[in-house]
């Protein structure tokens, strides 16, 4: 009982103390009330923060605040354009033939043996303060030979007594490119980059060989081993030599894979006592960006604070035409970043995160299916609008179509649905008409998607709006919008394909097709049943073979799946990054590539090879239209949908513009912490009457019991 009283006392004490400082349900310390801190919820903690390893949106949203590759995407301009970040200008690209002679820019791609990217970085950029750079008076590194005893009371690199920095150099970028093929690092793009960067494959072999000879616990210094195609010209300039012409390489230069890593940092983090305390480069990034990682508790939160050594950058002064009226250029020319601290807080479940957003404790939120009706309603023109409740809170809705596509693919190696014969095409076209993507988007995505007309999502060069952009094998243009062809037309195609009424002449029964898909749990049941019904419209019987993702991938690798569902999220905003999914040299079964449909059309391949090497010119657009037409006709995929992201932001947050390619965008945001504190206080005044009601209910409930107790005690006494 004493424990309960003590606990109740502590709570009352806390209630009293908190009452003076702000809302009782404030999950943050009272001292943070007016501070310029951005709070974000993370549903899952990132696996990697090492720029050579990180490759997911969650990971990028963290490390891109810290690491700076040479280029970045312009925050406001659309379509997406690259601008220099640490580079002084965009890379200068030169072309050479096999003899090493420089070629003019207009040289056809097949005559170019290699391209050289010359990148010049700006002088005067410094790394964040870090113990890896700290030296003693005689110039020796202070913390490069640590023992377990030295790490007493050290829980993060920021706990070391001496922190230092040094200037960013071209060698730091070269070092990171070497790390991509380090035998211990396992970068996901190691294989891909060895195909493109001259000398990287040989370098990988050499260091693999040398690495086997040293103790794996020791630091393996990559500096003495050169890469033929990657080298620093001087302190601020470096060259990357690419095989042939690969214009998309510039986009890789905006990804953290190509961010700088100083050798000192690599050396520092290779020390066993640090590794045993989980102090590694994979958990504590070291960059030149606007923020530095101050705390990393992977089960609770990550805290980023302003980097005191940030080189300085200003808010962009130009954008799209509507940006001025939207107030997005109000901060033009102002120094970045505006926010002092960013806290990423782990919220595994959506419901608490959503409620905390509504209480003002998170600045932004996505919308789950459960909360969709609470947040969104559709207006007269079927446009998404916020509900009155959210509008009253000053919340804003921002939507953006993701550079992604979800599709239903046909395995082109399959004897029933695969192949380029006219009958097979007609079967696939019939199925493409029957699967009502608009209905799917409405039922399963709450309208958050755009039915795909081809592989390219809106916003990517080559995507065409209006009648010329529709898939004419599936849609017709009526009343100013695409209209899906009737099911009768699909049935006609099916009959021409040799399956009248969906009957398989070889068996006399309905045509049996098999859909392989990951998942199959209760939450997927409705979705899979919906697919079955779409095929039933044609009289086709669809057998669902739902399985776990591992097994699904195995089936795809060996080509066992007949029809499958899959998706793709673009690495960069270029049509090549979508069309390559159907290039025969990327066939999943033959080459282990990303062409999961194993589609192989020589005409498509020929046009793709031309298109991928061109700049965004009318000639390229023409090729894209031809490629799209081939895909519409061959129908190796049923083009599904491009997801549309709905994100809610509180009114105190300014400069919000969804950017689907850039993730290091927190530096552009501005928040009004005073307004936030006032609104939080207003929205979170404690309501005590339910508590009193509860207590009253308990008292009323216990009163008869108390009477009975009295009576029984009285009876006992009499007895």
């Amino acid at each position, binding site marked *: 009982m004493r424990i309960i009283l003590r606990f109740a006392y502590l709570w009352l004490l806390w209630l009293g103390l908190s009452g003076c400082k702000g809302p009782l349900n404030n999950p943050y310390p009272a001292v943070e009330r007016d501070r310029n801190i951005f709070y974000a919820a993370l549903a899952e903690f990132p696996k990697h923060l090492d720029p050579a390893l990180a490759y*997911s949106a969650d990971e990028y949203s963290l490390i891109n605040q810290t690491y700076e590759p040479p280029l970045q995407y312009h925050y406001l301009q659309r379509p997406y354009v690259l601008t220099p970040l640490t580079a002084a200008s965009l890379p200068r690209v030169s072309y050479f033939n096999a003899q090493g002679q420089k070629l003019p820019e207009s040289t056809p791609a097949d005559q170019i043996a290699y391209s050289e990217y010359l990148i010049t970085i700006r002088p005067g950029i410094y790394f964040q303060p870090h113990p890896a750079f700290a030296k003693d008076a005689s110039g020796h590194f202070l913390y490069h030979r640590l023992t377990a005893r030295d790490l007493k009371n050290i829980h993060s690199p920021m706990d070391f007594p001496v922190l230092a920095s040094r200037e960013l150099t071209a060698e730091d970028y070269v070092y990171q490119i070497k790390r991509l093929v380090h035998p211990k690092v396992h970068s996901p793009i190691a294989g891909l980059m060895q195909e493109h960067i001259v000398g990287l494959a040989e370098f990988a072999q050499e260091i693999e060989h040398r690495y086997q000879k040293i103790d794996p616990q020791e630091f393996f210094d990559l500096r003495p081993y050169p890469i033929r195609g990657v080298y620093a010209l001087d302190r601020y300039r470096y060259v990357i030599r690419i095989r042939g012409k690969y214009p998309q390489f510039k986009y890789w230069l905006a990804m953290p894979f190509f961010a700088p890593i100083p050798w000192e940092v690599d050396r520092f983090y290779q020390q066993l006592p640090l590794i045993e*305390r989980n102090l590694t480069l994979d958990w504590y990034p070291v960059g030149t960006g606007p923020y530095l990682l101050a705390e990393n508790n992977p*089960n609770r939160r990550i805290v980023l604070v302003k980097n005191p050594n940030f080189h300085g950058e200003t808010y962009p002064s130009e954008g799209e035409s509507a940006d001025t009226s939207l107030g997005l250029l109000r901060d033009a020319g102002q120094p970045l970043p505006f926010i002092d601290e960013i806290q990423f807080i782990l919220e595994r479940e959506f419901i608490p995160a959503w409620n905390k957003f509504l209480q003002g404790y998170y600045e932004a939120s996505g919308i789950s299916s459960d909360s969709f009706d609470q947040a969104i309603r559709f207006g007269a023109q079927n446009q998404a609008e916020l509900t009155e409740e959210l509008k009253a809170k000053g919340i804003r809705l921002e939507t953006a179509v993701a550079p992604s596509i979800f599709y239903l693919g046909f395995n082109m190696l399959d004897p029933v649905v695969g192949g380029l014969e006219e009958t097979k095409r007609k079967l696939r076209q019939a199925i493409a008409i029957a699967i009502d993507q608009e209905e799917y988007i409405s039922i399963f995505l709450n309208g958050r998607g755009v039915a795909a007309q081809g592989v390219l999502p809106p916003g990517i060069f080559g995507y065409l709006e209006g009648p010329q952009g529709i898939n004419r094998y599936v849609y017709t243009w009526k009343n100013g919008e695409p209209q899906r062809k009737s099911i009768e037309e699909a049935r006609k195609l099916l009959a021409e394909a040799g399956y009248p009424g969906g009957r398989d002449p070889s068996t006399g029964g309905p045509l049996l097709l098999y859909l392989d898909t990951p998942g199959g749990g209760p939450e997927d049941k409705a979705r899979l049943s919906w697919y079955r019904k779409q095929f039933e419209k044609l009289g086709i019987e669809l057998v669902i073979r739902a399985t776990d993702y591992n097994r699904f991938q195995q089936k795809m690798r060996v080509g066992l799946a007949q029809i499958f569902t899959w998706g793709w999220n673009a690495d960069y905003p270029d049509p090549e990054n979508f069309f390559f999914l159907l290039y025969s040299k990327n066939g999943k079964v033959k080459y282990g590539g990303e062409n999961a449909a194993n589609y192989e059309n020589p005409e498509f391949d020929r046009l793709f090879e031309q298109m991928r090497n061109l700049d965004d010119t009318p000639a390229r657009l023409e090729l894209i239209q031809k490629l799209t037409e081939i895909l519409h006709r061959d129908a190796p995929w049923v083009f599904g949908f491009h997801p549309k992201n709905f994100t809610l932001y509180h009114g105190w947050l300014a400069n919000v513009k969804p950017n689907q390619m850039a993730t290091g965008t927190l530096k552009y945001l501005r928040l009004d912490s005073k307004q936030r504190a006032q609104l939080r206080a207003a929205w979170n005044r404690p309501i005590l009457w339910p508590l009193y009601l509860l207590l009253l209910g308990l008292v009323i409930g216990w009163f008869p019991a108390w009477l009975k107790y009295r009576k029984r005690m009285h009876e006992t006494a009499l007895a």
Partner: protein
Amino acid sequence: MTQYLLRRVLYAFPILVGVNLITFALFFVVNPPDDMARMQLGHKHVTQEAIEKWKHERGYDLPLLFNTQAQGMQRLTQTIFFQKSVNLFLFRFGRSDSGRDIVADIKERMGPSLAIAVPTLLLGLIVNITFALLLVFFRRTHFELSGLAACVVLMSTSALFYIIAGQYLFGKVMKLVPISGYGGGMSAIKFVLLPVLVGVVSGIGSGVRWYRTLFVEEIEKDYVRTARAKGLTEPKILFRHVLPNALIPILTGVVAILPLLFLGSLLTESFFGIPGLGSYTIDAISRQDFAIVRAMVFLGSALYILGLVLTDISYTLVDPRVRLE
């Protein structure tokens, strides 16, 4: 006693090997090493060569249970099972497949788990015993009947309902406590209050019914009748005589679960954002991190065995008639 303990420790070995073998088989049936590598390396652009390198570096390129290429004892020792299991028995858990030190992670996470589990256990005990004694006091009345009915209702309600209802009522409507989150030191109190309350309330149904059964069994005994005959009041009988005697099974039951407390609760910690151990194993399964899965299953089994041994010992301490031979 010493001999008994030694025997129990020796018995524990085959149990732990068996548990480890089952975990190993279940894990690798669903997650072949190639898929583990893919999960760690990502799904885009990963080559088979990169997968082979990843497996080799972590020892997942060996055969699972029997190495036909090796000679002698190496046929058994040069396998994934042996290589990954032997260090567990020395409590050397090593690093997770994503490279983090498992012991450091466990140390960091056990504190928040205990901050929820210990007060929930203690308060739950007090509340459950109190309500159970009240039911016994009002036995054979409509209070007992309605109390038991309420217990059945409480027992039948999903734990998730208590969590969501608690967050809705106290966090969202009344705004008395944070909906989720965690803080270090004294600031942890405000985050712990609601999960503890939810934990206690969700355990009332089953706890009260179980303790009531123990008390009812005790209250029918002769010494209670004698106490009544001597004129002792019902509260005195319940608190001075029935409670201490019924405490034996209660205490031994509590001792059995003590070592498991620090493993935390998945549901509570996930919904309340408590950075404990509750979700550590589940996260590892979803990330196909076998190093963490095997370490946590091994630790859980070892602690369970420890709990059973402690139960046996506690019997000898609270009941002198029990001897461990």
